[in-house]
């Protein structure tokens, strides 16, 4: 498969773009593999890529029930940041940020990573103090963080209402300049192409319907395209974690599935060139390269496997948007959609060996796992290859709930709908 380059772009453009080859093969499943990864989302594909690249394990299949990108990797609002409070999170997400910073080169695929910054707005002095604390915690670990005054914020985002009679006056903000956005589909496609060219079989339209076992040990999977055996079976199915684990006889998990909606407006001229988040409710917004404002807010807040949302949240998100940007009142919303998120009990992910022998589990991304895609795959590949976690994901085991070592960045307790 050819490298993408300025020359190949030009040559194909001159030939009417008729000679591009598919970015990955469409192989039939083999009878067995060293590693099967269930779920062809960003995390499953990056895991396959790093298994091959970092550990030389290439006899690998990624099984995806739909098409690549049909899950959350293609449904998210593309924000990438590493501005967490707790050290376990900060280290892990900063590792991800470093991988993002070189990802297009590493994959030879333009994932359009754009470090346009991410600004969290504070609306009370107490909240501003809290952001100062978070910024200091980040800087202790070598992550960039900067407090901004209302005047600096106004210069950065002229359309923002910072007047003192705004519904929620802006008293300052916490900015991470290295944060930003990436083209989500390209991330899936880039990892898929990178894994495929190293020998990984990516098998679409192949739903895992059960597990093959020898006693307790998982020895493969049953699928809509037949049985496939494997020495190791890795699960990375995001919002479907509950369902897939039930196929393995695991009835309960520290996970609930909730829907998160996202929205896009009609295209506008350049309006905002950073990611902004609202501190008084839950709202975040950026502008896509096509010009649409991409934004979202809270999850619907009750268990759901329906990949669509309900109206009350639409209403709430729109009011939050107008509280910040009254000038957007007449802008039309182009479309909205939902994705199913696996909300964990402490709001942090799970990257772990087990819970059954022969099985490896990657889940609990809540609605913040897109930014984690590179580090998640990198750490999961390490865990699968070596049968133990890397230092970076050692705190993110499944048994942390049992051991009383939860990683609760927001301090919300075991309340998935609040994380």
């Amino acid at each position, binding site marked *: 498969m050819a490298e993408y380059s300025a020359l190949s772009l030009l040559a194909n453009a001159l030939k009417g773009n008729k000679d591009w080859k598919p970015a990955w093969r469409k192989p039939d499943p083999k009878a067995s593999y060293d590693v099967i990864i269930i779920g062809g989302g960003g995390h499953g594909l990056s895991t396959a890529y790093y298994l091959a690249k970092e550990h030389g394990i290439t006899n690998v299949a990624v099984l995806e029930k739909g098409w690549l990108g049909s899950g959350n990797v293609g449904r998210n609002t593309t924000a990438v940041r590493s501005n967490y409070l707790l050290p376990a999170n900060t280290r892990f997400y900063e590792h991800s940020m470093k991988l993002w910073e070189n990802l297009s080169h590493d994959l030879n695929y333009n994932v359009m990573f754009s470090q346009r910054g991410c600004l969290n707005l504070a609306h009370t002095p107490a909240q501003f103090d809290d952001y100062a604390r978070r910024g200091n915690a980040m800087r202790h670990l070598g992550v960039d963080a900067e407090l901004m005054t209302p005047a600096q914020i106004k210069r950065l985002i002229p359309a923002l209402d910072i007047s003192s009679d705004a519904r929620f006056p802006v008293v300052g903000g916490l900015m991470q300049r290295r944060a930003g956005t990436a083209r989500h589909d390209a991330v899936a496609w880039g990892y898929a192409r990178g894994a495929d060219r190293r020998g990984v079989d990516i098998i679409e339209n192949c739903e895992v319907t059960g597990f093959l076992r020898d006693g307790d040990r998982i020895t493969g999977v049953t699928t809509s395209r037949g049985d496939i055996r494997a020495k190791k079976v890795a699960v990375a199915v995001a919002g479907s974690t509950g369902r897939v684990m039930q196929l393995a006889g695991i009835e309960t998990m*520290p996970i609930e599935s909730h829907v998160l909606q996202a929205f896009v407006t009609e295209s506008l001229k350049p309006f905002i060139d950073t990611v902004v988040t609202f501190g008084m409710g839950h709202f975040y917004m950026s502008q896509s390269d096509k010009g649409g404002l991409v934004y979202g807010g809270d999850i619907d807040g009750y268990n759901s496997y329906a990949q669509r949302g309900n109206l009350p949240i639409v209403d709430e998100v729109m009011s939050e948007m107008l509280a910040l940007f009254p000038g957007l009142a007449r802008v039309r919303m182009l479309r909205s959609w939902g994705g199913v998120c696996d909300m964990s009990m402490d709001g942090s992910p799970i990257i772990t060996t087990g819970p059954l022998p022969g099985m490896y589990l990657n889940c609990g991304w809540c609605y913040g796992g897109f930014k984690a895609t590179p580090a998640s795959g990198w750490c999961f590949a390490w865990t699968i290859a070596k049968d133990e976690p890397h230092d970076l994901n050692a705190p993110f085991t499944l048994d942390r709930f049992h051991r009383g070592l939860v990683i609760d960045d927001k301090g919300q307790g075991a309340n998935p709908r609040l994380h």
Partner: protein
Amino acid sequence: MLITCPYCGPRDVIEFTYQGDGNRERPDPASQNFEAWNAYVYDRLNPAGDHNEIWQHSGGCRAHLRVVRNTLTHEISSVAFARGDHGPVARRKAEGRS
């Protein structure tokens, strides 16, 4: 989504607050059964289909309700007051966690 409160009648979901999984059983406060407390706090059934859940009619009569709702279709098949001896419609097996 409409929830039919047994006291107030059918009302829009915005009047209600979701209180989560209704299958959980709170151990006796004096209990030192670690497994039972752990299951109560952290483990969830999270089914794709009918789910027993607790909602509060916080914008109405404020009663807590047991609701059976399908997590794939949002169809609600039963609503009852949570208080009293209406137990959960299908309790999870006592040994449910693994």
